[in-house]
């Protein structure tokens, strides 16, 4: 029976995660075009990004081609994702813990990818060599559990002890970190006390992929998977989804320096046609006048 419960829990948390994330992302993406609010440095400036310059430094800039570099954006993002560059530069106190914790998550993610890939191969009838799956998965798992539990614990303690962090941390912040600590620590514990812990994870993923129950989980593995599934389902409802939001804050706000073009003008026209509900008398809005009328003062 419990094997079925594991399967159902797995599908449910993947489903909740996927749906929750999709709703989040679609909601942000569907928000209307906003006024320009870019902030230097904008990394896609090809030659000027190093000192934060922009195309607006050019005389008659509207007559010149924009010199953009997607590569610079990519490098910026990689530095941000893997080294937490902004935290390193501006908040050295939390950086080591945050870095350990994020690296732990990445390792866990890559380990899960490997195990899923291997499960997919074996479902298709190919057996992947151990050197390609088990060994790297073991290394990634070890790194994930060690760094992740150190980082999550460090962040948890820091949040509790540091007055600045404590006064701004609500219960959810501690809960999220606690779940992550359990996830990493149980994985680490499992690896220490159980031979073939990663193999067990692999078997679970295989079974889940083929919707085949019949797998008994030991204590550490059960806690680890339970915490993992809970974390997955919880993620879209917490501020930890900032990894998705960050894409928008950079690409659609801080780096969005697109000029008005015909398509945008149409969009802006529609937005300006909306009724204004603000009440202050200097606006002279009555709930039916649109933005254009209010701006014209009619």
């Amino acid at each position, binding site marked *: 029976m419990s094997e079925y419960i594991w399967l159902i829990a797995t599908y449910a948390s993947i489903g909740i995660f996927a749906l929750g994330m999709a709703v989040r992302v679609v909601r942000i993406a569907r928000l209307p075009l906003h006024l320009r*609010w870019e*902030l230097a440095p904008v990394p896609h400036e090809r030659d000027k990004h190093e*000192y934060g310059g*922009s195309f*607006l430094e050019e005389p008659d800039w509207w007559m010149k081609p924009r010199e953009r570099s997607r590569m610079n954006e990519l490098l910026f993002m990689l530095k941000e994702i893997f080294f937490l560059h902004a935290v390193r530069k501006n*908040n050295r106190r939390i950086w080591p813990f945050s870095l350990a914790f994020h690296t732990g998550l990445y390792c866990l993610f890559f380990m899960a990818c490997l195990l899923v890939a291997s499960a997919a191969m074996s479902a298709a009838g190919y057996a992947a060599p151990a050197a390609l799956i088990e060994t790297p998965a073991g290394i990634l798992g070890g790194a994930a559990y060690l760094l992740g539990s150190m980082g999550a614990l460090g962040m948890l303690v820091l949040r509790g002890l540091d007055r600045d962090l404590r*006064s701004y941390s609500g219960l959810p912040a501690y809960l999220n970190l606690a779940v992550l600590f359990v996830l990493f620590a149980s994985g680490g514990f499992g690896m220490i006390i159980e031979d073939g812990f990663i193999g067990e994870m692999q078997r679970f993923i295989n079974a889940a992929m083929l919707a085949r129950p019949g797998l008994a989980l030991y204590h550490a593995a059960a806690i680890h998977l339970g915490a993992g599934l809970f974390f997955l389902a919880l993620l879209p409802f917490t501020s930890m989804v900032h990894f998705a939001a960050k894409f928008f804050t950079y690409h659609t706000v801080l780096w969005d320096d697109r000029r008005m073009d015909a398509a945008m003008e149409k969009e802006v026209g529609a937005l300006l046609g909306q009724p204004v509900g603000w009440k*202050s008398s200097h606006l002279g809005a009555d709930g039916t006048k649109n933005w254009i009328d209010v701006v014209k003062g009619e």
Partner: protein
Amino acid sequence: MKPTRIKNISKITREPLSANEIDDLVPLPPPYDRVEDQPGWKQLTGEQREAYACDLDGVVALSLPKPKNAEEEKQVVDSFVSGLRKLLSKENNWTFLQPLTLTLDYCARCQTCAQSCPVYQESGGNEIYRPTYRSEIFRRLVKKYTKRGGALLAKLKREDIDLNWTTISRLYELSYRCTMCRRCAQACPMGLDNGLITHELRKLFSQELGWAPRELHEKGTVQQLTVGSSTGMKPAVVRDNISFMDEDLSEELGIKIETPWDVEGADVLLIHNAGEILAWPENPAAFAIILNAAGVKWTLSSEAPAYDGVNYGLFYDDFQLARIVTRHMEVAKKLGVKKVIMGECGHQHKAMMTIADRILTGNLNIPRESSLTFIEDIVASGRIALDPSRNDFPVTLHDPCNIVRNLGIVEPQRRILRKICPRFREMEPHGVNNYCCGGGGGAAIMSQHNFKDWRVSVSGRMKFRQILEAFSDSPGPEIKKYVCAPCSNCKGQIRDIFEYYGAQEKSGLTYGGLVELIVNAMPEIKTPYIKWDVT
């Protein structure tokens, strides 16, 4: 200084939530390090305390009258809640809804932003000035009052904040303790923007409750839209002032200075911050000298409001912003100019060059360029003769946030200074990492009650420290030193800082724009153009 808890914002107290004491502030270097030598702050009178909300930090920037009765209080609370809802609606706030939603929903409460905020840092870590203090209160109120089940969730998460008149009036004052410099946004690992939260809060107050600082609203945007300029100058007065300035300086400098007006089909419409014409006429005059010497076909406009590039709507009200910028461009269209050049005014740059880009449609979207790039092009082309030895004094550069951090115009002004000022040195940090002058977001023109004391000694403290450090090789008054600040509002704030501390007498400091230095380097100008006693 007592630490303040977030929830205390709504506690009704006789004393301010967190009062400012000069000795809590980060000490300045000598000779400004002795607290007892500092001028101290204007004390509020008993009458002022009775009349106005002053229980945030003991500073009054806004003169908000206290409500007369419970009914009035309730109206304020209801309007605030309806304003919160409008800020989150697509119809009423399409202009900033996406950036606002992101900042509200994804803060990791890591406090990285606090390390970058000059106001918070220089106040000695006064909790109410922490970038996230304001944002967190706002965020909790948004969740509680605009989301389904928000009130219950707030209780469960222990994030409940009472919304009463005290909360709202304190938030109102608090929204004017941030200069919207966006240094915090640059540091935030999530790319979130506490400066934008300030902006949106101010908008709510203005657009829903009709609350805005007198200097920005009645005397600012309203006056500009009705009279033509936030200075109160009507078209005829502007023309008179400029022609008086032309005559006066022509005589003094021994060259003919002539300002062209309303030239149809000119290549360039130059728009100054009209404050320059009254407070620092040598700046518009320097523009006239340079443009005429370079043979540019340019013009000023005498049609309201296009002789004043100011647009305080940027700081507090989207509609006032749009009204002003639209009128600016209607005049440019009528004149048929090829492009509009921003004078040395930071917020004018931002309002007209980027923000307005998605407001101006059709043929109102006339190309707009910074005077910094335009003038650099002239300097680099060799069209005017320049002798750097005439600028042989220490010069440092202040980076106006609205031009540098917000627009990415960093190098043109530096290339000019490297060429014409042999003793140019940078402040640290500089460029896009600069610190605000402390007068951003409209603060520089706000001086009610004791607010000027606050902006000079708290929000402007970091800038003063940077200036002193930039000239640490020659700290005494015997060597005259120039702070180049190519922005009218920054100049106003730097003037006030220098006056407050007596920095001209004690340290030989003066300030001015960029074009003045260029004219000072022109050999054809016989008398020195830089005056060392401008404060």
